[in-house]
């Protein structure tokens, strides 16, 4: 009998496809508990100082208003538990919202209005009169530089200080040298679904429908802040309308909604406005990165120095870890990586797709291109020459790395060999044509996760873990993994997620859902199968009675003897005879000793073509070729989509996206018209492919993850293509037309 095709690696349609195209998929704001009230946040109009008076009288008299909540009337909230993330300075705000009357940034929550309808709450919010005492804010990196502090780690996971060899000496004696400063602006995630919460109290039990990409942590935060035991809090989130690093677990709308609901003793819905998404939902911080490279005449790297300055708010200690890739992406004996942070009166920054890798790879990969030009070496050849065959930072082997194959295939698919290296040498009619490339990289990360699997007497299975469907295809890919481990067709497996009552899953972040939760699903499925095997082999009525475990395989919903394919017992028959409705198992999966033996890195090669009108230098990206090595690709259809998304967000960062602050620290462009992000007409031909080599050292399914790999390197590939087209090196993103005039 031929082995049925494993569901792993199949380009299956999304399991939640029908729900999403019919409008039936329910996002956080779309639940409708009876008697639902609506809350609207009133935000600060100054950048630093304190609230001296908050006149709520007019708002309170406004039609339909149930309450106006200020720091003086807000229900008690304790600080956010500090141990949510490992060691080090907390990268998140621990101060609960409305804790005091201090204003640390423009757009900070200063009051919340609750009314019976959204319109009435909005109208009343406009009637709250807030008076401030304004103090002098810190507004720019340069101004604040004297107060900079050094960052040691990124969320306790990644060292931000690294030194090997002697960079100064290598630079002093270098045959080829490059020193430059690269800058990236504040960017906002701008998921199309705004952050949203519906909070409902039942006595001292709290239910949150929350757009959270870590429901278990949101539960812990809410429990800690309101002084409840975690079992009293349930966080539900079956669908998230995009997050990209925002919608973590401590954003203020969920705590404000819960406080408001407690105050008015009704369920309360609070959805941030798009404008509030620019000051209450995180952002990528501005960075200024000084990079120095030294090389031998033939391009062998002898020194890499990457000194990053980023900014954070007065309320959180977030650092943008730009230098992490510089520690190990290339082979180099002398390396120095440092990170400093200043405090500005801006809203708190947070993770945004490829934190560190995205702005960091812009600097490093632009610098490499500049070095290639200085040395007269092809940029692709330079990267091949300096390929890191092992992790020189940690001095250990890579678990699996096929970057050279990515370069080779990208070279071929793009036609890189036809590139004339001279700037302004290639044309398409009147248009300048530029070809640029860069390396993409993102670490393989997996944290502990737990899952349960239940095989039922109807020959189906349900697998579950408190993971999240954020557009990553979790419903689909995690069901594929369960089906593969159970020997069931994938359409007989359903996956449940997005509920803190389900077994623990880590945040949907760090590109790890498939790797982390998938491993737990596999482990739970194996245990459930062991129970079925035991039932069958100890049941005299089974054709498999007495057969040894290692002589059995599971396929198509049956246990089958390996020696004699005719000997088979359907899961449903086994359970029926045992008079069981099903068998269930749960299991935890966590990284083991492989963590110390290997380094895990996903890599790729990004190639970009731009065309630029020399008279009006608007950059059009006409072609992108990306070849990636994220380990095993479990669903090529959804995987390709994630890469497209990363690439497009990278193109946005390269050419369009920038949050602008005025001289008072106010956000100038807090909406989707003035914060420019890629629209359909900005998109052209994008060619995504994978090496698809499983990383068996990493986890059972061999997948490292790919949510953030696609954005890495895109900024530099575009900037390098722009240099090739125009001869102009742009070191501060985004590359807008005026910078090319």
């Amino acid at each position, binding site marked *: 009998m031929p082995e049925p095709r494993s569901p792993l690696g199949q380009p299956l*349609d999304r399991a*939640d*496809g*029908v*729900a*999403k*195209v*019919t*409008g*039936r*998929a329910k*996002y956080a*704001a*779309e639940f*409708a508990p009876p008697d639902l009230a609506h809350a609207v946040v009133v935000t600060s109009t100054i950048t630093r100082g304190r609230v001296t008076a908050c006149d709520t009288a007019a708002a309170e*008299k*406004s*039609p*339909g208003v*149930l309450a106006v909540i200020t720091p003086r009337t807000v229900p008690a909230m304790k600080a956010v538990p500090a141990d949510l993330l490992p060691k080090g300075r907390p990268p998140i705000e621990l101060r609960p919202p409305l804790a005091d009357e201090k204003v640390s940034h423009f757009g900070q929550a200063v009051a919340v209005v609750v*009314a*019976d*309808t*959204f*319109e*009435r709450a909005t*109208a009343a919010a406009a009637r709250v009169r807030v008076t401030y005492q304004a103090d002098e804010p810190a507004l720019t990196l340069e101004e604040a530089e004297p107060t900079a502090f050094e960052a040691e780690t990124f969320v306790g996971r990644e060292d931000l200080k690294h030194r090997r060899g002697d960079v100064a000496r290598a630079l002093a004696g270098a045959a080829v040298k490059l020193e430059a400063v690269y800058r990236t602006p504040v960017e906002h*995630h701008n*998921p*199309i*679904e*705004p952050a949203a919460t519906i909070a409902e109290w039942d006595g001292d039990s709290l239910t949150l429908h929350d757009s959270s990409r870590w429901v278990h942590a949101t539960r812990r935060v809410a429990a800690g802040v309101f002084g409840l035991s975690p079992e009293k809090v349930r966080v539900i989130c079956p669908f*998230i*309308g*995009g997050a990209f690093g925002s919608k973590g677990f401590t954003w203020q709308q969920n705590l404000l909604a819960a406080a408001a609901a407690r105050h008015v003793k009704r369920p309360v819905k609070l*959805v941030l406005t*798009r404008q509030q998404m620019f000051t209450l939902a995180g952002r990528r911080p501005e960075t200024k990165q000084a990079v120095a490279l030294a090389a031998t005449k033939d391009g062998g790297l002898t020194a890499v120095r990457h000194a990053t300055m980023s900014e954070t708010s007065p309320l959180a200690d977030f650092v943008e870890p730009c230098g992490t890739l510089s520690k190990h992406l290339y082979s180099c004996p002398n390396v120095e990586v440092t990170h400093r942070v200043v405090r500005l009166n801006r809203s708190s920054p947070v993770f945004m797709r490829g934190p560190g890798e995205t702005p960091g790879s812009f600097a490093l990969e632009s610098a490499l291109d500049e070095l290639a030009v200085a040395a007269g070496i092809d940029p692709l050849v330079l990267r091949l020459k300096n390929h890191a065959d092992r992790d020189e930072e940690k001095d250990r082997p890579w678990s699996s790395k096929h970057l050279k194959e990515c370069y080779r295939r990208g070279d071929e698919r793009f036609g890189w060999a036809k590139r004339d290296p001279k700037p302004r040498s290639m044309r398409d009619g009147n248009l300048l044509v530029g070809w640029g490339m860069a390396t993409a990289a993102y670490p393989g990360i997996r944290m502990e996760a737990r899952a349960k699997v239940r095989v039922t007497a109807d020959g189906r299975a349900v697998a579950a873990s408190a993971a999240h*469907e*954020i*557009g990553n*295809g979790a419903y689909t890919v995690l069901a594929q993994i369960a089906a593969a481990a159970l020997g069931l067709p994938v359409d007989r497996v359903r996956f449940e997620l997005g509920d803190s009552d389900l077994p623990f899953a880590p945040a949907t972040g760090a590109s790890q859902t498939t790797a982390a939760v998938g491993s737990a699903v596999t482990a739970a499925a194996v245990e459930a199968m062991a129970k079925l095997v035991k039932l069958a082999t100890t049941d005299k009525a089974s054709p498999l009675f007495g057969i040894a475990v290692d002589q059995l395989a599971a396929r198509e919903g049956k246990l089958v003897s390996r020696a004699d394919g005719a000997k088979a017992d359907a899961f449903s028959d086994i359970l029926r005879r045992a008079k069981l409705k099903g068998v269930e198992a749960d299991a935890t999966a966590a990284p083991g000793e492989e963590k110390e033996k290997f380094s895990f890195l996903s890599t790729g090669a990004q190639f970009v073509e731009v065309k630029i009108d020399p008279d009006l230098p608007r950059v059009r990206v006409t072609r992108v070729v990306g070849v990636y090595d994220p380990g095993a690709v479990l669903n090529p*259809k*959804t995987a*390709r*989509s994630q890469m*497209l*998304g*990363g690439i*497009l*967000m990278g193109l946005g960062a390269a050419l369009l996206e920038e949050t602008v602050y005025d001289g008072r620290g106010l956000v100038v462009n807090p*909406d*989707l*018209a003035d914060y420019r*992000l*890629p*629209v*359909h*007409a900005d*998109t052209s031909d*994008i060619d995504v492919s994978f090496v698809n080599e499983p990383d068996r050292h990493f986890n059972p399914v061999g997948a490292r993850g790919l949510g953030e790999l696609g954005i890495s390197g895109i900024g530099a590939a575009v900037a390098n293509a722009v240099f090739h087209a125009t001869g102009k090196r742009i070191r501060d993103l985004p590359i807008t037309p005026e910078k090319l005039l």
Partner: protein
Amino acid sequence: MSPDQDIDSAADRREFMEGVAVGGIGVAFAAALPITATADEPVPPARGPGQPVPVKLNVNGTDHDLKLEPRVTLLDALREGLHLTGSKKGCDHGQCGACTVLVDGRRVNSCLTLAVATVGRKVQTVEGLADGDVLHPLQLAFIKHDAFQCGYCTPGQLCSAAGLLKEGRAKSDDEIREEMSGNICRCGAYPNILVAVREVRQGALKEKP
């Protein structure tokens, strides 16, 4: 708000004065209380943004009787009043397109359209695209080509695409890209949306003699 919720309060300054003038001080006093404390006596009709009016909306072929303040947008009437949450709120400013619905077959941003302005018109939302359990060709093509990730912009993308196909636009890839540019997809599904819309347009062409 719930569709059958009635009304009872008015307390902005002008409405307060009107209340005094029309109904006497007792009513006005009651009306100034929070909404949970409903006035015992019927509140006299009043005008203004705080006062709901009866609105009959035809959505996906069904008439609905609502009481809505005139300032309620079509999007909020659909989502909050009718619990038709397929139409999404992304920006509430007509900038993202997630709220796109068809009104008399034309694409509109329902967040910029007042519900009262659609009385007597036919509103079609993503919930009305399928014919019972039979999905619209665009819905099938979106699934087949993975033309979405998080799915939040998808209802708007589908309604936009349905509208422009009906209008006989989207004749070339560039035209699809341009015409669909009012619908932002932050997940970056544009290349797949293009293929899906193109396929349906070509299918539609084939069906025509």
